[in-house]
């Protein structure tokens, strides 16, 4: 039993719903009690979808348990097939139905329908949402393609046509998938590569049947598509790319990998510096101020790994923390963290992540919506890079993360929360100006001075606790406090903490003006 106040991932049947709702002409009968219907709002509210998920919940009740729940399940399956006329039927159960073992998948298969039936077994007490999504996609592809013969297949060179690829992995409630797909399609088009099928997002069962027509699978989101790509490679001999095109370097590597797998020559234009504005913006003098910015990264595996590379190689930040909530991705995240001299944080407990943020005192947090809230409490700028999805992560504008345009979006999204370089420089120059007295609120709106009117009562309580827990701390002298007050408010908290840490290490009972400068020298060294 695990105490959970908040969870990064839902149960595995939510992953299955993401696949079902992403696709067309497919219906999912979910053996589940009425409360589980809440899941519809994830799609209709967070994604603002104008149609209901294609899901029939059996909504069995306690009084049904004494009787024949199997008949109840069959009734719902029949009604769903009659009403929605799907081309493929998914049948599964949520946590409660798993306990009563009606085996709805087997029931459905015995009902004599002439459509493919995919029976889902998603262990609700050990697995989570992304695993459920991945397993569901894999089961659909396997069910629909297991009898496919690959014998008459020819290469694009033999058939004298443009090469074709499938984009696998994008789903609803995935981070910016809608726009990533468009961006990658556009990118591939520029290199003369056609997109055969995009799945699960927007694909019908008939589209899944067309997957074998492609020369290569592009695994855009390994969390969802990796197991499917491996199966397609083993059984239908379709190779797949493993580089996720997030960031300039990764987009170049992705194009290089894809061209190699397709046996195409890599055009030099892949390496042109002006493909994405990120490259020049990051080289421009203004961005000097980004050098060595301490950044803490947490999210799903793919986005956390990519963020670490972009932060480290393309923006010149210093990664001070790297982690993921996705245990399936721990295998990849651990060595990446190690390469940065860090130990990866693998946890599903947001309070542990918040503690790690406090510990590393970063200048920027790249995380999920939960880290955005934690960072707000701590007064640290934050940009959201990963699921779980929030209505803010489905912007009206085109806002991909992948490809060249994705890199542009990332530059803006990550750098704007930080003080823009020139602005920071000016504030440093004019810090004694009347405008920058205590209480001046930066346009960023995060905690500065006394500008705490935006924080909830619960937030205030934690802050209060923070300031109360001071036992054993060195005492600030009047001179020390006076000198501290000259430091711009937005770094004052950090300077205070650093100085106190230093004083404790150095064994100072008092902090005066000199201690402050000693600490400054100590941390700069």
């Amino acid at each position, binding site marked *: 039993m695990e105490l959970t106040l908040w969870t990064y991932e839902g149960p595995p049947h939510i992953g299955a719903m993401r696949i079902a709702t992403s696709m067309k002409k497919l219906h999912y009968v979910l053996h589940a009690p009425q409360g*589980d219907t809440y899941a519809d709002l994830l799609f209709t509210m967070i994604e603002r979808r104008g149609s209901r998920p294609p899901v029939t919940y059996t909504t069995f009740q306690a009084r049904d348990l004494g009787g024949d729940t199997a008949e109840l399940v069959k009734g719902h399956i029949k009604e769903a097939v009659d009403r929605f006329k799907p081309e493929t039927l998914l049948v599964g159960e949520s946590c409660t139905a798993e306990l009563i073992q009606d085996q709805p998948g087997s029931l459905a298969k015995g009902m004599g329908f002439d459509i493919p039936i995919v029976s889902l077994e998603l262990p609700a007490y050990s697995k989570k949402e992304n695993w459920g999504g991945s397993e569901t996609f894999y089961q659909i592809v396997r069910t629909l393609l297991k009898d496919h013969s690959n014998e008459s297949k020819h290469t694009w060179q033999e058939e004298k046509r443009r090469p074709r690829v499938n984009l696998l992995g994008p789903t609803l409630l995935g981070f910016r998938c809608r726009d990533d797909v468009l961006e990658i399609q556009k990118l591939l088009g520029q290199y003369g590569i056609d997109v055969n099928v995009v799945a699960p997002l927007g694909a019908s069962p008939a589209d899944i049947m067309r997957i074998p027509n492609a020369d290569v699978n592009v695994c855009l989101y390994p969390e969802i598509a990796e197991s499917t790509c491996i199966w397609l490679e083993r059984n239908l001999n379709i190779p797949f790319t493993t580089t996720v095109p997030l960031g300039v370097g990764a987009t170049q590597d992705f194009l290089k990998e894809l061209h190699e797998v397709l046996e195409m020559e890599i055009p030099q234009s892949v390496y042109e510096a002006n493909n994405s504005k990120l490259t020049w913006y990051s080289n421009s003098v203004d961005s000097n101020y980004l050098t060595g910015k301490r950044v803490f990264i947490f999210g799903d595996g793919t986005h956390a790994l990519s963020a670490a590379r972009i932060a480290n190689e393309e923006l010149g930040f210093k990664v001070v923390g790297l982690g993921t909530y996705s245990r399936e991705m721990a295998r990849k995240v651990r060595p990446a963290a190690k390469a940065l001299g860090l130990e990866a944080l693998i946890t599903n407990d947001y309070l542990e992540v918040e503690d790690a943020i406090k510990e590393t005192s970063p200048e920027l947090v790249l995380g999920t919506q939960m880290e955005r809230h934690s960072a707000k409490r701590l007064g640290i700028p934050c940009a959201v890079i990963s699921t779980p999805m929030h209505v803010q992560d489905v912007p009206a504008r085109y806002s991909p993360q992948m490809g060249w345009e994705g890199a542009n979006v990332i530059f803006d999204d990550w750098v704007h929360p930080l003080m823009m370089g020139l602005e920071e420089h000016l504030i440093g120059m004019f810090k004694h100006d009347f405008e920058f007295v205590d209480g001046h609120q930066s346009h960023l709106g995060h905690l500065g001075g006394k500008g705490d009117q935006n924080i909830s009562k619960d937030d205030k309580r934690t802050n209060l606790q923070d300031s109360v827990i001071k036992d054993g701390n060195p005492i600030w002298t009047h001179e020390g406090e006076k000198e501290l007050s000259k430091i711009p408010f937005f770094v004052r908290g950090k300077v205070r903490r650093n100085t106190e840490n230093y004083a404790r290490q150095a064994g100072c009972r008092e902090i005066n003006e000199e201690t402050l400068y000693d600490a400054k020298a100590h941390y700069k060294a």
Partner: protein
Amino acid sequence: MSGATLLKESGPKEVFCGLTSIVWLHRRMPDAFFLVVGSRTCAHLIQSAAGVMIFAEPRFGTAILEERDLAGLADAHDELNRVVKNLLARRPEIKTLFLVGSCPSEVIKIDLSRVAENLNIELKGQVTVLNYSGSGIETTFTQGEDGALKALIPLMPKSDQKKLLLVGTLANAVEDRLISIFNRLGIDNVESFPPRQSIELPSIGPGTKVLLTQPYLTDTSRELKNKGAEIIEAPFPLGVTGSTLWIQAAANSFGIDKSIVDSILNPLILRAKQALAPHIEKLSGKKLFLLPESQLEIPLARFLSNECGMEIVEIGTPYLNRDLMKAEIDLLPSDCRIVEGQHVEKQLDRVRDSSPDLVVCGMGLANPLEAEGISTKWSIEMVFSPIHGIDQASDLAELFSRPLRRHEILNPKTLTSN
């Protein structure tokens, strides 16, 4: 009863389970903690419905069952004990801990009352541990509050004191207002249940007259009756008429002179009707369809039809308690169709066939209906908003007139021949 047609329907439902009540109960009693004993689905449901992230340390959580908890019940009980003790060690401010049963905990028959009993012995009164079920196989949405209140009743001290007890969660501001009106009428001893602090429970006994503020408290009202309290029969305090009848019922029960009641309420009624007028203009003649969810559907329909002139197509209700709803149903127009239970697909077919101007529904259904051009109102808003009482009648009407007004702004009628 009036001539309202009562129908029953069964099939796939689209409603929240009782766990969702935690969303407002934890705000009402900030010294209590609600620990759901359930699955990752339960945790995900509550965080999806409640916007949990704004809380540094929310006052609710889930003890998520894992594979090994399913193997042996003895171990599950021990595990729960461990989780509770960790939680209480970290959160010493908790005064009352509700162990909330869920679908999986009910199916595997975890005995929460036994766990609570043992914990109460161990904790020696530092924290009171209670239990109730919010499971979706037994409860719907607001019924969770019924369960939580019922669990508190055995702790209420006994007293023969004459008092008015308002039962059901109200917004604090509304509650203060209603109490001050009762005081003006001469009913001085007015208390609320649930209280604002879980440990400040009102006393109960033969002198207690209970006035229900919410229509979903079946078990609670029965238990209060068993404790000797008298349940005052009245419609619910929604709208001018409902609230007036509700206050009058209490005044009658306390033997307050009618002229005093009138002299105090009449100016409020007059003012409320003035405030209501612009909304009536917007709502009058418009067709309303209420899907089942909060159990407030019948009183809302009564207000919107009788006072705002809306035409009721159908009133869905998750379940119908004829005793508690009698006064409401009597006030409904005689041609009303009330459907108990749900077959969500057939009901949505009826929604489309009747092309209503406004549909009251759950959060999952709202946008799909909006996308079809049908204005909607979330039923969950009714349990969060201060809508009770004479003074709030126009605010309540505004909740329904706003979507219509918005629809008109965004879709101005063009002068075309069709």
